[in-house]
């Protein structure tokens, strides 16, 4: 195993009384496809937010490509691209204009901007629609545009936060094909969160199962099934996370959901 490109050590994130992430540690090596698998409200998005410098951890240490995420924000930011859980596009602008803004924000050399934008929009089959406003795009087109945008500055790591939420099967397969190809041809490290077992199993090299803010198991699918003495990833997953239904609420947090808690805390 080569050196870890993403590393988390005892990372904790609290919002007021609520602990969203409770002392997680993991390492992802270069070129790996790594999945964070867990039920709703387990702390997946909070972890991604911390890794991508949007949230500051309460304690613990996160490094990306050797840069401390809290201390060397800019260096850390240059090393990743991200596709957010909710679209983060400017809808009143065209796809091309969205790409152009991103190129400037990430200091892509002027001479290369036009070439890269064309290449990437062609890669995700949006070149013909480059001058349409994003507000006219379907959910799948938006996701593809976001993937293209996230790749513009040639990041070493690509974060995908539940990237297939709300997409149809065709688009979903297309998206994972792109992602796998990126990993194979460019050695890009991919970190994604999901609550779909088949995505974690089919795409990821290794899976971390997270629940109630803690990592309960990490490994390849065979390792996980062996560890739990089960026959499939689904059985292993259910054994590790239990069978109760989650509504982004966990009993350990007095029944409060993480998003509400964050809002309450900010208003206080």
């Amino acid at each position, binding site marked *: 195993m080569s050196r870890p490109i993403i590393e988390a050590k005892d990372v904790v994130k609290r919002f007021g009384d609520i602990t969203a992430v409770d002392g997680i540690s993991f390492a992802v090596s270069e070129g790996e496809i790594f999945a964070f698998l867990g039920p709703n409200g387990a702390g997946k998005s909070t972890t991604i937010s911390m890794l991508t410098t949007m*949230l500051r951890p309460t304690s613990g240490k996160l490094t990306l490509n050797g840069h401390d995420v809290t201390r060397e924000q800019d260096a850390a*930011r240059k090393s990743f691209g991200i596709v*957010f859980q909710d*679209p983060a596009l400017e809808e009143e602008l065209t796809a091309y*204009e969205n790409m*152009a803004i*991103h190129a*400037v*924000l*990430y200091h892509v050399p002027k001479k290369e901007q036009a070439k890269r934008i064309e290449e990437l929009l062609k890669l995700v089959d949006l070149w013909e629609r480059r001058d349409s406003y994003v507000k006219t795009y379907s959910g799948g087109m938006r996701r593809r545009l976001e993937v293209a945008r996230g790749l513009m500055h040639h990041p070493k790591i690509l974060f995908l936060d539940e990237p297939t939420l709300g997409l149809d099967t065709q688009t979903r397969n297309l998206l994972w094909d792109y992602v796998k190809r990126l990993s194979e041809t460019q050695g890009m490290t991919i970190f994604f969160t999901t609550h779909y077992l088949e995505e974690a199993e089919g795409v990821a090299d290794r899976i971390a199962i997270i629940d109630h803010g803690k990592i309960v198991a990490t490994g390849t699918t065979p390792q996980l099934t062996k560890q739990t003495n089960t026959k499939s990833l689904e059985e292993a997953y259910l054994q590790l996370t239990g069978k109760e239904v989650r509504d982004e609420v966990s009993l350990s947090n007095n029944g409060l959901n993480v998003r509400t808690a964050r809002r309450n805390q900010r208003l206080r």
Partner: protein
Amino acid sequence: MDVVYILWQRQMKRYVRSRSRVLGAIGQPILFLLALGYGLGSVYKRAGEGNYLEFLVPGIIVQTLLFSGVFWGIQILFDKRFGFLKEMLVAPVSRFRILLGNALGWATISFLQGVFVLVISVALGFRAYNWFLLPVSLLVMVALCLALTSFGAGLASIVEDFQGFQGINNFIIFPLYFLSGALYPLTNVPTALRIASEINPLTYCVDALRYTMIHQSHFGIIKDLLVIALMVAACVAFAVNRFNRIQA
């Protein structure tokens, strides 16, 4: 510089492409100008104060800048809601430059709207007493736009969603407006009202515009300009401080 420019340009593109926004934002001040200017004009004249429309124009310009400035600053809430804020915040660019690019865009839009209103006032018969002072008036407007968009951006960084915006409108913006002397002269008003107006920085903006446009001043232009400069500095500091703390 590129970053600031592209973010400024984004705001301008958005603005130019939505004509309803352009019209909507100047509709309200024009309505005020017509309804109050013509409606109260005769009473004002009978009280021996002169031409009310003339008196009102600087106040209505400040009103335009106040409402549009803070409104544009609040666009951060839209960016939060529609996600584009995240795209900007995770970019390897300092928060200050992100804020600057956006705020300059909003301030430009807000300034243009103030100029529209001035042009329309002139079409309605408003005449400044000395057009050579126009650059000073415009400068005051620019300063006010910067201060107000920053103020709006700072507020938007604190409140979580649009419910908070309604409260801001009712408890901050409208009192600031009514206590700014935009609609009535501050001579002979009750003491409490006078004190409230004197601690409101907008009063000094209205006063500065009145001085440069119709040669009437309550405080004197030097004091006005000093207060305006302080206000700009305070608002920008507030915005930078709050925006730096946003966690998405």
